[in-house]
């Protein structure tokens, strides 16, 4: 494996609240290689966005990184000063959010927003930055980009807006892009376009991508490796084909089975009983055990199974037995 | 020396005959002159006339000898022509002074420096009516299209309303109504050597808010303010470089009561008018502790009154003005006698922007009357709302203040004691009516024998006092605050004549 663009080591994010300290991200470790697309899936509230935000240093108070390391190209970025971290953002890590409408400042023309980002990170003149902005827009497939540079976000359709957002994320040629549910707000046809665009651009530039989503289908089609999160913890990580076709964690298995496609022809869908516990009421031991069909006595006790970096596929006491 | 002078209100106009009103006349006095003037003690002294007397031939004529060698501010010469012109102007329909000259049938020149006023009967007190009738230059008025008096109510704006050309000690430099008026000394004034004339420039600023006015004096921004709020007298007086001087004013404050109506609308007594009972009025008169009002509300700055007549007025006697005893027990007994042992309730209407501490006085009276069971609701309001109540007979119990520009009792009787009517008694809100008294009042005007006349006045007063027609409270005291360098006495009409001011 080539040196990872992003390495997360035992990352813990904590939110102190009135009753207890919550851990929306709990001992996560993962790597993304150059040019690789890593999918992150999990139910709502599993901590996917929180992980992404932690990487780019945008956790909202009171959430903060409590322990662990984040390395970008081998360099620690979780303990940078505000200003140095700012220079990492946009320049070395690009970000794409879920809702393209709210991601863009409604009062500034899109060209202006791209130009300012370029000027911020690259040593170019304003004129150069502007022509680069046009080029960036052309790359993401905005027709007549030069003419639309002065348009405001509201003058674009949803799909076009998301293209603009992608252009913004990529305009300073970052090594890593974090895309947090970039297509959830879009129609299938547009979703297909955006995913294809993202894949194409990253492949061309060798950018590593962390693609957060909860759509298994998107994962299957778009990513190289996938990480499955549950209640803030990494449940399983591995090659996408392996994980999806031969899940090692009962949670992954349940998730896969409950998609209508997987239950084709059945009168009822397979379902995981119960719901993901709230962070303030996590069970002892493996967080999934109350819903797990295979749960044994060991699962109910601390410590819970954790996935260390490169330490296997699934955080399940039974994983290795079954994969083997 | 510049005198920065402030008071609550501004002059309304510079046209000397358009408005008969305190601040207006006060400003006019600096710029223009009447034939005779009241000096700062209220005494009538020569101004543009040097001598005057009833004509020996005709008792209906007053003859005046005019001052010679006087010039107007623009250099024009002053003579009898200007006086005749000004008097005719003051008697024209738009003039606000025509009532003062109502008895005048004709004015005429008698040579260049002689002037005569013809009246429709002997008028023994004629000169006292003339101290605010200013003289302006005929040629100037003609040249500037200002021969007619400004129709103030009709909203006319004339040259004379914004400019002035008098013979007075000060000349107009600039004027912004309600904001600032600047006057400078008239170097050619006839009395330049006769009067102190130590103020060379006057800057006159109306400052309405009392606290601001005092603040301006305290901070040295103005040198002289009229109407210092009584509570601030001590502060002003004890401030280094400032002084306060006080003097009784020609104004008495009193309450009027509806004693004529058979029943009152605003009371809680069915079918009767408690105020119609003299015993009740007497009781109320006794209940009011004038000394306390003086001490607390007025901070000593008032002269408790026993009669609704300022002490300057012809007819005033110490005896009349002696205070009714403040005796709550006796008052209660009177109330019980009259059948109001449990009291009654009534509304007192009071202005809150007219007299010194008017509202506080009323409030104090409320407390005092409460002690004899008269339960008073107080309604204090701006004068614009208060006075119509009196004139339209819409109030049963009200406060009123009365000044007597003629310094004669007749003026009081005409307005306050005579049965209310068109010509007489127009400010009599008491509904009191005594035809016999009315006759006596009307006879006063034509009585030439001064002794006889004074007897009649005394008679009328005894009736008024006996009826407890009004509840007199006090005579107002004027308070002028000024820089210590200013040396003057207080003018009882509250019209400072700055030519008399000395600067230390």
């Amino acid at each position, binding site marked *: 494996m080539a040196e990872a663009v992003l390495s997360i080591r035992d990352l813990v994010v904590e939110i102190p609240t009135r009753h207890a300290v919550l851990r929306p991200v709990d001992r996560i470790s993962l790597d993304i290689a150059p040019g690789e697309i890593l999918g992150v899936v999990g139910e709502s509230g599993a901590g996917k966005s929180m992980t992404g935000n932690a990487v780019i240093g945008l956790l909202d108070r009171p959430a903060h990184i409590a322990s662990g390391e984040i390395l970008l190209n081998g360099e620690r970025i979780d303990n940078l000063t505000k200003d140095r971290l700012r220079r990492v953002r946009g320049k070395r890590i690009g970000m794409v959010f879920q809702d393209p409408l709210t991601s863009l400042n409604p009062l500034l023309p899109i060209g202006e927003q791209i130009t300012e980002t370029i000027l*911020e990170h690259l040593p170019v003149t304003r004129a150069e930055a502007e022509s680069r902005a046009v080029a960036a827009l052309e790359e993401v497939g905005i027709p007549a980009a030069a003419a639309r540079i002065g348009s405001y976000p509201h003058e674009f359709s949803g799909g076009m807006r998301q293209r603009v957002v992608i252009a913004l994320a990529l305009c300073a040629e970052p090594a890593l892009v974090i895309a947090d549910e970039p297509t959830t707000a879009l129609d299938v046809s547009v979703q297909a376009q955006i995913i294809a665009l993202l894949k194409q651009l990253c492949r061309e530039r060798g950018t590593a991508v962390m693609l957060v989503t909860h759509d298994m289908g998107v994962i299957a089609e778009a990513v190289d490796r996938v990480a499955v999160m549950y209640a803030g913890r990494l449940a399983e990580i591995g090659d996408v084909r392996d994980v999806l076709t031969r899940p090692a964690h009962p949670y992954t298995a349940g998730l896969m089975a409950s998609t209508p496609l997987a239950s084709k022809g059945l009168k009822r869908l397979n379902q995981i009983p119960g719901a993901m516990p709230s962070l303030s009421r996590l069970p002892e031991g493996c967080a999934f055990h109350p819903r797990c069909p295979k749960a044994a006595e060991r699962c109910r006790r601390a410590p819970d199974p954790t996935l260390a970096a490169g330490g296997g596929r699934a955080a399940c006491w039974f994983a290795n037995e079954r994969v083997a | 020396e510049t005198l920065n002078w402030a008071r609550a209100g501004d002059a309304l*106009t510079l046209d000397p005959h358009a408005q008969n009103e305190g601040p207006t006349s006060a400003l006019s006095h600096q710029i223009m002159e009447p034939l005779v003037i009241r000096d700062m003690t209220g005494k009538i002294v020569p101004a543009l006339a040097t001598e005057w007397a009833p004509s020996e031939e005709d008792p209906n004529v007053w003859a005046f000898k005019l001052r010679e060698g006087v010039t107007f501010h623009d250099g024009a010469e002053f003579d009898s022509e200007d006086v005749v012109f000004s008097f005719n102007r003051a008697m024209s329909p738009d003039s606000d002074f025509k009532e003062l000259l109502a008895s005048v049938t004709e004015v005429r020149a008698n040579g260049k420096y002689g002037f005569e006023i013809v009246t429709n009967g002997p008028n023994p007190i004629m000169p006292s009516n003339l101290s605010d009738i200013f003289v302006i230059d005929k040629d100037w008025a003609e040249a500037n299209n200002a021969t007619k008096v400004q*129709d103030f109510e009709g909203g006319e704006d004339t040259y004379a309303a914004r400019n002035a050309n008098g013979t007075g000690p000060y000349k107009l430099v600039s004027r912004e109504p309600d904001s600032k008026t600047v006057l400078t000394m008239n170097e050619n004034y006839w009395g330049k050597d006769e009067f102190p004339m130590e103020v060379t420039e006057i800057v006159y600023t109306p400052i309405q808010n009392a606290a601001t006015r005092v603040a301006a004096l305290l901070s040295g921004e103005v040198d002289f303010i009229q109407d210092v709020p009584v509570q601030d007298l001590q502060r002003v007086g004890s401030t280094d470089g400032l002084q306060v001087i006080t003097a009784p004013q020609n104004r008495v404050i009193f309450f009027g009561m509806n004693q004529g109506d058979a029943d009152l609308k605003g009371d809680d007594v069915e079918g009767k008018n408690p105020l119609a009972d003299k015993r009740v009025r007497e009781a109320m008169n006794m209940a009011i502790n004038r000394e306390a009002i003086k001490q607390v509300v007025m901070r000593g700055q008032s002269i408790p009154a026993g009669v609704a007549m300022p002490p300057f007025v012809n007819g005033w006697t110490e005896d009349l003005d002696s205070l009714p005893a403040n005796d709550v027990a006796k008052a209660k007994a009177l109330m019980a006698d009259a059948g109001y042992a449990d009291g009654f309730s009534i509304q007192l209407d009071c202005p809150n922007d007219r007299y010194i501490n008017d509202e506080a006085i009323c409030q104090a009276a409320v407390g005092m009357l409460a002690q004899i069971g008269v339960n008073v609701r107080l309604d204090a309001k701006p004068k614009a709302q208060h006075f119509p109540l009196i004139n339209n007979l819409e109030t049963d119990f009200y406060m009123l203040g009365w000044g007597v520009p003629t310094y004669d009792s007749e003026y009081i009787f005409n307005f306050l004691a005579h049965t209310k009517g068109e010509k007489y008694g127009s400010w009599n809100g008491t509904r009191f009516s005594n035809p016999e008294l009315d006759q006596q009042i009307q006879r006063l005007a034509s009585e030439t024998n001064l002794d006889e006349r004074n007897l009649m006045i005394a008679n009328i007063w005894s009736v008024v006092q006996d009826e407890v027609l009004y509840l007199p409270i006090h005579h107002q005291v004027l308070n002028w605050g000024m820089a210590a360098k200013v040396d003057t006495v207080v003018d009882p009409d509250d019209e400072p004549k700055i030519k008399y001011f000395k600067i230390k």
Partner: protein
Amino acid sequence: MLAFVIRRVFQSFVVLLVVGLVAFSMFRFVGDPIENMLGQERTGADIERLRGQLGLDQPFPVQYFKFLTGAAQGNFGVSYRQGRPVADIIAERLPATLELASVSAILAIVFGLGLGVFTAIRRDGWAANTIMTLSLVGVSLPTFLIGILLIYLFAVELNMLPSFGRGEVVDLGWWRTGFLTESGLKALILPSITLGLYQMTLIMRLVRSEMLEVLRQDYIRFARARGLREKSVLFRHALKNTLVPVITVTGLQLGSIIAFAIITETVFQWPGVGLLFINAIQFVDIPVMAAYLMLISVMFVGINLIVDLLYFVIDPRLRGDSSKATA
């Protein structure tokens, strides 16, 4: 946008008509002007004559109609108290009020915006909290009291600033300004603070809460994610978006500055239209009162129109094709 302006102007016109009607009918209850205009010695005939002269004996609708037709031609009649055309008096007084109001407005806006932004970014800092609490003191005392206290402190006790009036003024054509002399500028300080304090607090608090709101928007997060400088994020992105809602309220506040000038002008004897109005009320000077109210309405409506037009400048979503913007 043209349609918008036309609609606003039309609405403003209706508003003015209503204001005129309301104003006019209300004055009938303030008192009887006649009593003030005639002296102690007036007769009943005088009263009747004057009533006729002023047209006060005519039926109310006739009076209103006359007032409206006059007002439309800029003729508001003649002041009962000063005996001069109201339009002249107002023209004379207006510069004083406008100068005071504009200085206060600038104070309110500059400090309101500045402190609002400061307290929003330093949210929970001690300085911001202190400012927030102090600002509440400013709105917890009536304006007139603040004015009097300022006079007491700075004019009477410290003798630093004048307590009343405009100081020296200079005539520039018909405009009489206090901006050009030292004493004129000094005289402006206390009144404009008194007048602007309340609005400043309001603007500041509004800016703060709107700014906090904007700062948690996605595009701010995205701007940060793009690595923009904090200064650029706060002032280029956040502040501009904050302004959109702030402008409306600020517009309304500017309107009420002119109205609140009544109190300040009374306390400081500031020779502006507010003082004129208070004097007019005491004197029941109906033409002046009516003209003043109309003037206030015109200004209010005018300010609102400008505010609405500012929206078009600031917010591109309102420009051009609005159907797309709302879709």
